[in-house]
């Protein structure tokens, strides 16, 4: 006589094909006359009764999977066991390995899996980030805190605790680091080498590490601190720790410090420690007078490019120059802009690039406006509307609310490029192009069509616009630097080696009022 065995699997959702395959497989097992894998709905339970199958499924719910086998009593337990194995196999086939890799649900669990890890990268909504960071610190881990929206008070508490444990907190809002040769978050693939960097600026770190790589040297460590670390309230705790670690690191020969101007007392403390590092230190505090920074053993420079060049010079045993800036020469006989075209419009995805550009342009030209204002530039009243020379950081919160950062999502920037080209006062559009992990996989694919649209818009009014930019990336970055450069150059963009050079070229163009070759 036939028997029936039922197995209820709670809240098990499998697609119909899997359920059909399961039923078919069970039906073919020795001793099984019929099998069914259906949802445990009222009607299906009633149906089984109508079919003469005595099914005891008390407590079953419509969201449960019901496996029913009918046949020789002795064969049925093995059939159910096979069904369960099959469900498990399906799970594994559907990415079980990757799912297993994600299984740790806490830092403690992840630490067990990771073994000897000594750092945690935390990227959670800001409300939870500080608590997770503190958990990591208590477990003896250094922390890279990618999250933003962490309060100053929380940041201070984390960093003070870390200091007591001889650990570092990189962040919050730390977007870039290269630790033991591994790029973290937004970072480029650079050679390993003798230059160590500590920076309170993500794109600042990217510019310096990329240029060091291009100049033939390499990076030992690039340590991010978060943008507020050198505020009075925080006191530069992470920069001091990074400085100390690099000073003790035998692989680091030269240290580069990168920041906007720190609070005076913090700057004093950092520079005092730098002077005692026992190895050369290059400091670029954007906006600060290099003369006010220079100390014995501390070489002060004004731009990110100069910091990279000075560091590499020191590595090579050369005396670093105070400045590597040269105003570019434009050849004679170039076509003139229209009379109305007098201004530069800078559209940036990197906040530090925009800040550096505003500083440099403010020194070279009057009437510079920006949403990253400096002592020699005005605050832009309406970030959506350019006037005179305007430099906009499109990574500012006002632009990223509800949309991805412009390093990833180029829509806002490409729309703005066309808008600026339509303005009869625009002569030069200045851009930064970031490569590396985290950034857009093919910036040229976004920029080239936008440049063509912008040219068409300007041409329809009888004008031409020049495009100037720099690519912050290395030949080892996945975006293929050579291909990006070629595509952008063919589209007519004038590419320079650094942000500072791009700014100076743009200034030279508007000063001369001529359209260089490439700016069709």
């Amino acid at each position, binding site marked *: 006589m036939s028997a029936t065995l039922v197995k209820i699997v709670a809240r098990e959702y499998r697609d119909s094909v899997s359920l059909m395959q399961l039923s078919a497989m069970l039906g073919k097992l020795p001793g099984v006359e019929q099998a069914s894998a*259906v949802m445990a*709905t009222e009607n299906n339970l009633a149906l089984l009764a109508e*079919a003469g199958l005595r099914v005891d499924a008390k407590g079953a719910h*419509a969201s449960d999977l019901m496996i029913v086998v009918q046949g020789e009593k002795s064969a049925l337990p093995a059939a159910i066991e096979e069904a369960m194995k099959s469900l498990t196999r399906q799970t594994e086939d559907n*990415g079980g390995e990757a799912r297993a890799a994600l299984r740790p649900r806490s830092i403690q669990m992840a630490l067990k899996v990771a073994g000897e890890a000594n750092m945690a990268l935390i990227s959670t909504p*800001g409300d939870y980030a500080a608590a997770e960071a503190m958990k990591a610190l208590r477990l003896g881990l250094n922390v890279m805190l990618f999250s*933003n929206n962490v309060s100053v008070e929380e940041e201070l508490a984390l960093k003070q605790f870390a200091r007591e444990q001889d650990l570092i907190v990189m962040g919050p809002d730390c977007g870039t680091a290269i630790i033991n040769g591994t790029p973290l978050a937004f970072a480029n693939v650079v050679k390993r080498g003798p230059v160590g960097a500590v920076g309170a600026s993500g794109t600042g770190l990217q510019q310096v590490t990329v240029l060091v790589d291009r100049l033939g040297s390499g990076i030992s460590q690039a340590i991010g601190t978060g943008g507020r670390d050198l505020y009075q309230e925080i006191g530069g705790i992470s920069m001091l720790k990074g400085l100390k670690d690099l000073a003790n690191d035998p692989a680091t020969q030269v240290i580069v410090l990168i920041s906007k101007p720190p609070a005076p007392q913090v700057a004093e403390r950092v520079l005092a420690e730098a002077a005692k590092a026992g190895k050369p230190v290059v400091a670029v505090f954007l906006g600060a007078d290099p003369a006010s920074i220079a100390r014995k053993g501390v070489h002060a420079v004004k731009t990110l490019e100069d910091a990279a060049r000075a560091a590499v010079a020191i590595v090579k045993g050369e005396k670093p120059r105070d400045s590597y800036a040269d105003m570019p020469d434009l050849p004679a006989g170039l076509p003139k802009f229209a009379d109305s075209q007098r201004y530069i419009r800078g559209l940036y995805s990197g906040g530090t690039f925009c800040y550096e550009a505003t500083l440099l342009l403010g020194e070279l030209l009057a009437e510079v406006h920006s949403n990253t204002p400096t002592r020699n530039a005005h605050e832009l009243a309406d970030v959506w509307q350019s006037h005179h020379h305007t430099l906009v950081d499109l990574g500012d919160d006002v632009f990223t609310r509800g949309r991805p950062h412009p390093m990833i999502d180029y829509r806002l920037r490409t729309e703005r490029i066309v808008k600026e080209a339509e303005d009869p006062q625009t002569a030069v559009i200045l851009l930064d192009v970031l490569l590396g992990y985290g950034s857009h996989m093919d910036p040229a694919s976004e920029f080239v069509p936008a440049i063509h649209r912008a040219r068409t818009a300007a041409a329809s009014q009888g004008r031409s616009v020049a495009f100037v930019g720099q690519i912050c990336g290395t030949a080892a970055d996945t975006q293929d630097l050579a291909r990006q450069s070629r595509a952008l150059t063919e589209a007519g963009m004038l590419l320079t080696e650094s942000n500072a050079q791009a700014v100076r070229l743009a200034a030279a163009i508007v000063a001369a009022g001529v359209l260089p070759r490439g700016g069709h």
Partner: protein
Amino acid sequence: MPWPQSESDGGRCATSHGRLGVPCVVRADRIGDRVPVFASGRVHSVFEHACNIETRTGELVTLLAQDLGNVPHGIRLAGPVAPFEPWLIPGQNAILDKVALRVSDAGMTVDLSGAAVWRGGVAAVAIDTRNATRAVALRELRTTLYECAPAQGFAPLLAAPASTRSSVDRAVAARLSHTLPLLARATEQRDVTAVAAAAARLVGLGPGLTPSGDDFIVGYLAALWSRAGHENGIDAMLHSLADSLAPLFLRTNAISRQMLSDAAQGRFAERLIDVTGAVAGMGDVVDATANALASGHSSGADTLCGLLFGYAPDMAMLAAPSSPHRPPGQPHLRAARLERRAGRAAALA
């Protein structure tokens, strides 16, 4: 990176540089008009190309890969993505607002800012037996359905009830042979109570993640909504029916429940809508039917059985075409051609 993307507009495998605090952003291109504007919930179920998120109010929002048709409660991604299964896990928290769906536990943000609203309304069809074009369209639908339907679900039982094999199949066939004439009569008489009574015998009935009976009811309701503009009494019946059917939907699982709830409000999946459009003369019936059949294993066929029944609620219309056609589940060359064209089956149901 935990959310590998293949290319282009579907989004980038990238971090958002500390702004959103999550590592990956993907773009959506369509958002169904039944998707709530604000909701929080948890990942409910995950398939290769679809993921359901259950809101705190019990609704489902379905995240769909680009290659799936839209659904009224769905958010469809704009570009190719890796399978959902390894990355999204039931129980993960999710938050939906006007601009994004965030599954922070999976490190994923779906950017909704560029997504157009998709409305899942059916095409109006006038069922007039004197209309030769319409009759041809329905015959094409029936022929394609029975030629290409799989061996499971309602289609083979309706096509050849006498040839059923297992006792469970026989029980389903018996239930259908008893219930469908009641449903046909109730529909003809615009009798809401009787329609609900018949539907109660179908909800949650049969194989599949979305049981065949649920799929059948969805198709049936699609036909009624499609006919409503042309026939007296159907519109009023549908509005009363929504309230009468709602308690029945609690008898099935959450995925089916959402689909039925949408259907009761006149909202349907894109592939089913395409079939109604084709029957209305706005497309190729065979193509549309083949595409709809590619939904799930038997769900597409079960839904089309319901649609055909709703358009022509007499058993003669549901019976399999006479020779030389075979019973379902034995695809011949034409079916094989259609299967190839329809592509991979949707993983949702």
